[in-house]
């Protein structure tokens, strides 16, 4: 195709008004008579203006912009910017989308067309303020990144109060929708999907806010990620609710993040359903105050094909709490997970070289990261039919012990529904980690990070959880401790003075282990565009918030 001279002149002239004319004026009248494809392209873009935002191409007569709703009932504003409204299924809308988003005005609403479209590059949006990118609905607008030259699908860099809603992102090379360094992130009614069998080569994170503040993730569908379907990392003030995470390695993961409420979600067919992690070496060294409640967490029995940090998650896991402190897990239905309902592990399970922690992790320990797991409160969860086929390298020896006579009972057991490694607590209680205190920086120490013997507020507590197993297998819902936590009990040490794994087990309802109560954690609140979300915001009357 060749651009004629006049056209070239036009673009030159018009471009000059680009910067200051970012205000979209309504009632524009645009007429273009050109030739060939150029005309078509321009007209398709122009239609949206001439029609006052209508995408049906029928002209402005009798069409009010108010009438367009997404399938989630989001109403497009009259000044919405319609991207490639006349595109047909299979069209590549990359350029149209890039142009619409280029240095976009604050508070713009950009509407993706209805249908299935190809996008061939990462869509990067820097420092947007108040921007909404919307499709016509989670099933109605589908962006297919197959063959894209970029890694992520859509990536927000910086920005305030940004929204992605009502569309699906498929088959990105790496992450689906990412936001880094943003304050105010709202992902809703989006789908991030990798179809086909779960394989290492599939995408990493579906929804991926990181180093961000005020994150509201609701009504999304995350499927087929080789890492976490919904991942929030190094962020604060987070609400993740009403999402479905299916057939990912990790369903929903909260990592190195503070003040997170994860509720009313469904996590199924993942390798692990819902996870809270603190990983070493990150900018935000540690998180806490994570509440996981009223979720449906079932049949998370997919093979763990992931690599990197997520690879430690044992397949068959309902909830995995790993090297993080300050988590409340309550009123969830955790069922049919083949390894365990709730696994509680210190980082020592992953790296047992305790003596070298100050050397290998000194800098991040100084920043407050800790291998320990403290202050976990599990209550009122319905736990049923877990542990049928335990697996996972993290627990390999533990599983071998419980499923053979080599545990505290001398009899093979169904793998515990709640399993706690106990090693960090034993070592702390024995005073074996007090030297770590010298590594902890002043800020972290002031924030309560220490390696002292566990105080009452540090304990892991489980009570009031409901055994949902039917009659014959009722006794199979147990709580297990890999290491006893009492340093004065000789049973917990071997002949050389090293910790000895006891593989303790008893019925969950007996509360032999983890029998204590912790303070309830405060709710997380997200402030987005000046409005508050979460249990102390828009969900004040939500039943889950009263649990």
């Amino acid at each position, binding site marked *: 195709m060749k*651009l004629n001279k006049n*056209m*070239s002149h*036009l*673009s*030159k*002239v*018009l*471009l*000059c*008004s*680009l910067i*200051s*004319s*970012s205000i*979209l*004026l309504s009632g*524009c009248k*645009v*007429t*273009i*008579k*050109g030739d060939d494809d150029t005309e078509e*392209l*321009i007209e398709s873009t122009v239609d949206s203006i001439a029609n006052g935002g209508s995408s049906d191409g029928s002209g402005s007569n009798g069409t009010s912009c108010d009438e367009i709703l997404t399938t989630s009932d989001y109403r497009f504003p009259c000044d919405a910017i319609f991207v490639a409204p006349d595109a047909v299924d299979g069209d590549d809308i990359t*350029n149209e989308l*890039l*142009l*619409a988003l*280029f240095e976009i005005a604050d508070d713009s609403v950009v509407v993706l067309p209805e249908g299935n479209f190809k996008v061939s590059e990462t869509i*990067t949006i820097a420092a947007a303020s108040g921007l909404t990118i919307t499709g016509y609905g989670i099933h109605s607008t589908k962006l297919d990144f197959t063959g*894209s030259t970029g*890694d992520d699908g859509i990536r927000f*860099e*910086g920005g*305030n109060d940004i929204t992605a809603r009502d569309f699906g992102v498929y088959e990105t*090379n*790496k*992450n689906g929708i990412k936001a*880094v*360094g943003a304050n105010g992130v709202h992902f809703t009614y989006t789908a991030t999907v990798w179809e086909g069998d779960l394989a290492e*080569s599939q995408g*990493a994170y579906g929804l991926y806010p990181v*180093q961000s*503040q005020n994150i509201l993730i609701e009504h999304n569908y995350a499927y087929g990620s080789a*890492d976490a379907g919904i*991942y929030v*990392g*190094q962020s*604060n003030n987070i609400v993740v609710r009403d999402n479905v995470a299916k057939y990912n390695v990790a369903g929903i993961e909260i990592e190195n993040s503070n003040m997170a409420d994860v509720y009313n979600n469904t996590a199924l067919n993942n390798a692990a359903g819902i996870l809270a992690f603190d990983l*070493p070496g*990150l*900018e*935000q060294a540690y998180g806490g105050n994570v509440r996981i409640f009223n979720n449906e967490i079932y049949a998370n029995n997919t093979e763990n094909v*992931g*690599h*990197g940090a997520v690879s430690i998650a044992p397949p068959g896991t309902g909830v995995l709490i790993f090297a993080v402190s300050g988590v409340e897990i309550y009123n969830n239905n955790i069922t049919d997970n083949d390894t365990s309902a709730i696994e509680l592990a210190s980082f020592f399970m992953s790296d047992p*070289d305790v003596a070298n922690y100050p050397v*290998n992790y000194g*800098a991040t320990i100084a920043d407050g990261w800790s291998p320990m797991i403290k202050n976990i409160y599990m209550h009122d969860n319905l736990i049923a039919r877990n542990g049928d086929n335990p697996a996972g390298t993290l627990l390999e020896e533990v599983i071998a012990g419980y499923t053979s006579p080599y545990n505290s009972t001398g009899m093979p057991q169904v793998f515990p529904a709640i399993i706690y490694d106990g090693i960090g607590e034993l070592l702390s209680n024995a005073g074996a980690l007090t030297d770590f205190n010298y590594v902890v920086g002043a800020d972290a120490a002031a924030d309560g990070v220490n390696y002292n013997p566990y105080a009452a507020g540090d304990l892991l507590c489980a009570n009031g959880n409901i055994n949902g197993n039917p009659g014959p297998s009722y006794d199979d819902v147990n709580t297990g401790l890999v290491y006893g936590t009492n340093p004065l009990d000789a049973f917990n040490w071997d002949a050389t003075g090293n910790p000895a794994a006891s593989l303790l087990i008893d019925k969950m309802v007996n509360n032999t282990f983890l029998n204590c109560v912790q303070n309830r954690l405060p709710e997380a609140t997200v402030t987005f565009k000046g409005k508050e979300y979460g249990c102390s915001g828009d969900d004040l009357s939500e039943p889950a918030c009263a649990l």
Partner: protein
Amino acid sequence: MKYIKIKNIALKGSMMVLAITLLSACKIVFKDGDVAVKPGNGSGTSPASCSAQTDGVNWGALLTENCTNLSDYNLFADSTDPTDNPNSGGIPYDLTTALFTDYASKYRFAFIPEGQKAVYNEHEAFDFPIGSVLVKTFAMPEYTSDRDGSELVIETRLLILREGGWVARPYYWETSTDATLAITGKSIENMTTNHKGEELTFTYGIPKATSCTSCHAVVPLLQGPDDTREAIFKPIGPKARFLNKDYDYGGLVMNQLSYWALQGKLESLPADLESVSHTPEFNDSTDLSQLNGEELNDNAKAYLDINCAHCHRSELTLPEPLYAGPAGGSGLQVEYNRSYDENPGKFGTCKVPVAGGHSDYSADVVPLNADDSYLLFRMSTNDERHRMPELGRSTVHGEGAALIRKWINNLPSASCSPAP
């Protein structure tokens, strides 16, 4: 220098530019070339400034307009040759170690408005005065061994410092007579170059304008729910340590920093150049076997700095407190002025990848075992899932990968290293 004519490359980019422009201008009537533009209220731009005839650089247009044609800014005496003869005292420059871009040759110029100066910074890009423009032209040599020989001029990228901060504008040389603004970038298939006897054929990607932030922005390390600081756009190359080398100014060979100061374009340069940081001059002809251990570390850190640290950085010497590169959050932070010994984990040593990862690589960097190091793999693959840098290359930089391989294999043993 000889130019190869580029032909038959569709002008889709320009048309897209046209389309978005229509979104923002009101009442446009266009009939068979008959153009009328009536700007809406408050538009107030003067499109004419793009076509203004100026003696030197068209500063007025640079400051406010996104002109369609590169020639509109009148940056070069010969508007068809962006590799030489800058107008208005534009200074050509070179870097000690450069970002790898598919073996392209790069022609860099700094244009600083008359009578104004950039301010020296010990560690960071200089503080340029408003109106400054950094111009980088990418050309693919027919033979990488003969960069003065024939080449295909592909694109010219402008970084312009306007009132609101730096903006990036890519121009694509669709013909040999002028380059046009390519907001949406461009994929050029079947780009070829002969590198060390091997004919490389690949798709060259001109990054879209919005991608520029991926490398050029630093993002706030948000300090709480009320922290609404925004990302900041920054140049990468013009730092003292990269400029601190000699350059041949048409017969006058002089240290670049001294030359800038001499030209009245740089202030606060320390009198003692010895005290100014510099990175080693690593290039494709560097003989790794001639580097001693310290030089090897130095070269590797310089290479990681210019190729990775624009994203993989955090705080340290950034002048704005509590900012980081967009990938600083990964925990991998490889600035040249960061001490490896103080925290090897920041350079990836024994660090498990946070997002993704790969089954064959246990950590980003496994000292003494480059083959197990994910960082090296990511430099050595074109798979979009793993490739690093994620933008700006379609080929693997063999020489850079060899440098990093040797560096990893000579690092001090760490906890994840193979047992002796």
